[in-house]
């Protein structure tokens, strides 16, 4: 599919994402301006506060955005899932440049000019409004410009907490190997937005710079037009935001009864979508908070921001409950069920019928040439190989460190840590020689990759289950009925097929799920 056809087909969705993105950026930047400039002014008056406050703002900037989102989710009022959390995080990032430039701009006003103002009998307030702020304005605007460009960038990550925006396309594109259309459709508008913010605020900045203050410039019509356009964009953005906020509050009136979450990959989305459609058929309103990144689904479930999400027993057992890996499926399931009930008041559904375990993959050509069947077969060759692993595999207890010890694996160099979906491309294009993929990945066969058998039974069982809050089950009894239908209902082959439909055949997940439900006769 060409980029052009993609655009034509997804025009509406893309406009929605652009609008969401723009809203996130405009709202956060405005809030940061409203908080940041007065704070900056205060800091020029109270020297003792200056270093502590700038220090805190500095530290804020160094917190990785996903970590900050994770930290915000469980917080009351400002936290949660969706745009509000994203805006809080964006504001925290945008504050530093605005505060810092306000302080620098005001303190940078020529000493003689300030002295003249004092000597003329101007009050502190008059000096601030008539002398300091106008003279500092272009420096302050530089701060706003930097803040806005930062916001455009960070807002792409906001999709991980369900805030929407262009990050939705970018993350989907990253997971969906080879779909450059999605990546482009996300990245291009974001880049354009950053450039436009940079350019328009740059113009505004020039307008306020002292150098620009000459007789000729003052009268220039062009200048007035530029200002008018900027004002129009701002007013338009504000109006759109107001409209969006209004429609949001209106939809809150008929508030969703069940909030479903999912992890940020196709299979998890599909599993959540299945529950969503089965509930909707039965007349329930469902709110979808899909594609949550990292540990966010778990945090959100525990914090009561979502009612349910699909999980894997092995992941729950090791990554969340921090138990040492074992490989008896029943023991793992029972232990997970018990601990979740005790610790989180969360119920674990019976297994859905398939496993999504780590699949150690090599290229088919290589496997046939070297006659590789098991992971042990590969150990002797690994010294000449490079490996690439997703962040998840590198960091979890049942991931790389235990795995390499169990098999005595050594690679030519430290494994590359990269986005999981990119590892498939990296393997297929000879950039790495071994990866840890997912066993239900639809494209394993399509890309001629071979899964090596876990002959030492290192990996714990990863049976798919649903996790849901006990109070949600009590509130929505229908949930139990729906979940009962899904026990042992999906085979590994079926799951691979569903994944393949979405990832490789580019069909929408809701459409794929609808067809599957029909086939199953639910």
């Amino acid at each position: 599919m060409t980029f052009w056809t993609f655009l034509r087909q997804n025009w509406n969705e893309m406009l929605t994402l652009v609008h969401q993105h723009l809203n996130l950026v405009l709202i956060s930047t405005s809030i940061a301006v409203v908080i940041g400039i007065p704070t900056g002014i205060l800091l020029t008056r109270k020297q003792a506060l200056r270093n502590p406050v700038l220090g805190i703002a500095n530290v804020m900037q160094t917190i990785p955005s996903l970590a900050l989102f994770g930290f915000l989710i469980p917080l009351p009022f400002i936290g949660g899932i969706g745009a509000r959390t994203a805006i809080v995080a964006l504001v925290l990032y945008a504050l530093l440049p605005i505060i810092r430039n306000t302080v620098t701009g005001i303190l940078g006003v020529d000493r003689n000019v300030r002295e003249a103002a004092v000597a003329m009998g101007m009050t502190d307030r008059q000096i601030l409004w008539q002398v300091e702020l106008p003279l500092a304005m272009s420096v302050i605007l530089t701060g706003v410009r930097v803040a806005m460009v930062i916001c455009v960038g960070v807002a792409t990550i906001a999709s991980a907490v369900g805030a929407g925006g262009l990050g939705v396309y970018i993350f989907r594109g990253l997971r969906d190997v080879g779909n450059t259309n999605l990546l482009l459709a996300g990245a291009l508008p974001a880049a354009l937005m950053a450039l436009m913010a940079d350019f328009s605020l740059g113009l505004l900045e020039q307008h306020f710079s002292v150098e620009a203050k000459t007789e000729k410039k003052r009268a220039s019509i062009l200048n007035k037009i530029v200002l008018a356009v900027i004002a129009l964009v701002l007013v338009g953005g504000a109006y759109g935001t107001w409209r969006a906020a209004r429609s949001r509050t209106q939809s809150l009136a008929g508030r969703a009864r069940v909030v479903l979450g999912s992890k940020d990959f196709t299979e998890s989305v599909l599993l959540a979508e299945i529950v969503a459609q089965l509930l909707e058929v039965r007349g329930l309103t469902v709110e979808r908070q899909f594609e949550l990144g990292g540990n966010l689904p778990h945090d959100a479930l525990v914090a009561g921001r979502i009612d349910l999400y699909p999980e894997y027993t092995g992941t729950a057992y090791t990554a969340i409950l921090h138990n040492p890996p074992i490989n008896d499926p029943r023991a793992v399931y029972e232990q997970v069920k018990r601990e979740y009930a005790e610790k989180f008041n969360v119920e674990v559904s019976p297994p859905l019928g398939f496993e999504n375990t780590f699949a150690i993959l090599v290229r088919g050509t290589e496997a046939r040439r070297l006659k590789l069947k098991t992971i042990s077969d590969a150990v002797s060759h690994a010294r000449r190989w490079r490996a690439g692993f997703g962040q998840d595999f590198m960091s979890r207890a049942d991931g790389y460190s235990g795995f390499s010890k169990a098999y005595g694996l050594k690679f030519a160099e430290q494994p590359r840590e990269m986005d999981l979906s990119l590892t498939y491309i990296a393997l297929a294009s000879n950039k790495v020689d071994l990866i840890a993929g997912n066993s239900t990945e639809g494209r394993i066969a399509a890309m001629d990759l071979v899964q090596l058998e876990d002959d030492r039974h290192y990996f714990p069982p990863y049976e798919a289950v649903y996790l849901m809050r006990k109070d949600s089950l009590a509130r929505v009894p229908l949930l139990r009925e729906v979940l009962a239908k899904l026990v042992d209902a999906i085979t590994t082959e079926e799951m691979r097929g569903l994944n393949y439909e979405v990832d490789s055949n580019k069909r929408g997940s809701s459409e794929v799920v609808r067809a599957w439900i029909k086939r199953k006769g639910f």
Partner: protein
Amino acid sequence: MTGVDDNPLVEFRDVSYSVPSLSSPIISDLDLKVEQGEILVLLGESGCGKTTTLRLINRLLTPTSGRVMVEGKPTTEWDPIRLRRRIGYVIQDAGLFPHFTVERNIGLVPSLEGWEITRVKERVTELLSLVGLDADKFAQRFPRELSGGQRQRVGVARALAADPPLLLLDEPFGALDPLRRASLQREFGELTRRLHKSAIFVTHDLREALRLGSRIALMHAGRLALVETPENFLNSNEEHARAYLETLQLHDDEEGFTGGNR
């Protein structure tokens, strides 16, 4: 200025001013009176404390010891804003607001004092012509579009704008060519006499001091060396005064100037 005419306009009573970073005071034991209608010239070499003395009057600085009285009241007891609105200050290098036009720079204090716009505009035009600048040409310019000397003249006009009873001028004509300088000195002298203005005028140019001052206060290293009328100053035997007079002699020999006959 006020009804209390027996009070000098400005009076330094044993004033010292020091900063923690310097071991010796910048101003030491200064005693000085400035009467109504008088033009006192502060004369002295660079760094002797002239600007500091001015800044003590409008309370940009407060004395470390002693008192500076304005109209019989210590500056520390004045409301600083009221005090400063009564004192026009021409800062050493003009200190114009770079983001305001000439018109707004000059009209600022009158506007702050609540004058009507038309009256402010008239006043600006009047003052600009007083300092020899064409209002049509200069009123709408920004300071960066002026030469150094033009900026200084706008600075003088700004200090005069709200008709303050006291003027503090810190080397206001420093950047002017000799012709323009002489004519402005003449106009300034006439102006202050006619309007019965009081002024403290800083310079390190003896000829300017002799031309303008009703009295000359000679400072040296933060102390007052001598306060005399111009006639007496010319005949003084005080060592620092002699040093200044010798430079005059030198110039006179070169230029055939007959100093003192104003």
